[in-house]
């Protein structure tokens, strides 16, 4: 199926709703999953969250007015659902995060002149290695541009906890990317 424009999908809703949703799956499923995965690094949960967004869209698509692009709407809906999911899990964000020595000095050799692509690879690996709670808070800041206050409110945690988690995340990322500094 070729890529359909928003207005084509929205007019398809009236004639063949299932086909319209199918088009939305083909065009945005991966995009939405990746956006959510940046925050929740668990494929099963991510797919459940996104599936739920499509299901809700199916139920209300005749009634809602989407004035942004469908892509932006779906992304926002998926992120909101993911954040609600995290809050419902009642994860204890304020417990002391144990940073293993192993995490901090994982690269022994001094690799001081990282090329840009290399740096990206190293960062990707480092982000993938973040503990769950660090990753959630860090990603909300980095990828959703949420302020400390917004993060605190949507997870129902204190700003102090957000500060701690951000600090931990950056500490781990830095130790992974620039190991030669911390090993001294």
């Amino acid at each position, binding site marked *: 199926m070729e890529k359909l424009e928003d207005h084509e999908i929205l007019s398809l809703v009236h004639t063949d709703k*299932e086909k319209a*949703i*199918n088009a939305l*799956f*083909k065009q945005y*499923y*991966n995009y939405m*999953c*990746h956006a959510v*995965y*940046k925050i929740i*690094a668990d*494929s099963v949960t*991510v*797919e459940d969250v996104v*599936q739920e967004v*499509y*299901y*809700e869209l*199916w*139920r209300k698509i005749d009634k*809602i*007015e989407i*004035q*942004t692009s469908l892509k*932006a709407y779906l992304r*926002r*809906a998926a992120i*909101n*659902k993911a*954040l*609600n999911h995290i*809050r*419902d899990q009642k994860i204890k964000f304020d417990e002391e995060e144990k940073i293993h020595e192993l995490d901090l000095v994982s690269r022994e050799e001094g690799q001081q002149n990282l090329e840009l692509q290399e*740096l*990206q690879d190293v*960062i*990707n690996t480092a982000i993938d290695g973040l503990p769950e709670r660090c990753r959630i808070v860090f990603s909300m*800041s*980095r*990828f959703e*541009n*949420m*302020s*400390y*206050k*917004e993060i605190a*409110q*949507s997870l129902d945690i204190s700003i102090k906890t957000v*500060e*701690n988690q*951000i*600090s931990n995340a*950056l*500490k781990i*990322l*830095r130790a992974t*990317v620039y190991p030669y*500094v*911390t090993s001294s």
Partner: protein
Amino acid sequence: MQKHTPYHLLHKKLTGEINSAESNLLDKLMEVDVDAEYSSLETELGDIWNQAEGYSPNVVFNADAAFAKFQDRIQSEQADQSQEEANQSQEEVEISQEQAPDPIKDIKTENEGQPAKVMRMKPTRKLLPLAASFLAIVALIFLLKNSLADNTMTESTAGSYALADGSTIWLNENSEIKYPESFKSDRVIQLTGEAYFKVAKSPKPFMVETATGIVEAISTEFTVDTDDKNIEVSVIEGSVELEFDGDSKIVKEKQKAFNQDGKIEVENIASRNVANWRKAGLSFKSDNLATVVSDLQTYFGVEIVMNEKGVDSACNAITSPNLPHTSSIEYFFDVIIPESHKIKYTKNVDGSFTITEFSCTK
């Protein structure tokens, strides 16, 4: 590296969120930083932060498989629904023989695929006929505003929603909010149903428009509950102004306001359970009875006494699915708990409960 290394301050500087006090603190730390440790830290964190933006998870998702799963779900649901409809239409035929059907009745079919929910009515509050014309005008204004606003988000699923300004809205079941993705001047939220608002400080006024009245807030926490005739505003923190049918009143902390005979009445809040529903359901995972009881007390706002003798406090395997907002505590005791545990309780005259027997064995 010292323990108080200001990672989060440097981070706030990167995101532009840093305030002047934090900025001063950071400057002071930098001044005493003889080894230039912080400035190299700042550079490195800057590089990491910028580069992290390009992060893309190395996972593949299968859209076709997901769509197949989706189809299964809606097909099984449609099968259930058509079965229900078949039963229903049979009943309707029988009724129509006796009386003519109301032609307006079934035009609005909300919540397709879901059982109909009963709308809460407030019998004590009566409405002036005048309000009807007021409604029409408000509706017109809404239509105009809707067509002008761009990037409006519409949400009708219960849950919490973060707004661009840092405010949060907790939406109840069977309710809907509309809000712009970003705020240009006034922060205007449109509400149908019930929601709890926690408003972030900003010079831009925060307004909740409903079909019945308008609530304006500065920096505060409050709930708004409406149907198409009534409005009730409860203020948890700060104060708000409620406009209704030409009347306007300031509602202060721990007060609630509602319309009665076309006017706004304000009274003090007696219940400590305003907006309890916003806690997204109630669920337990391997919890012990003390935790469960404490949560139930907060959630339902009732007192629960445990009879020491019959209660096995060593049993800590209470797990339950997410309880919908609309459940009662009796439902929890009578249906949820007995699935895995043995429980006996009594309801006392004063509304409190006593658990007389509890154990892990069914």
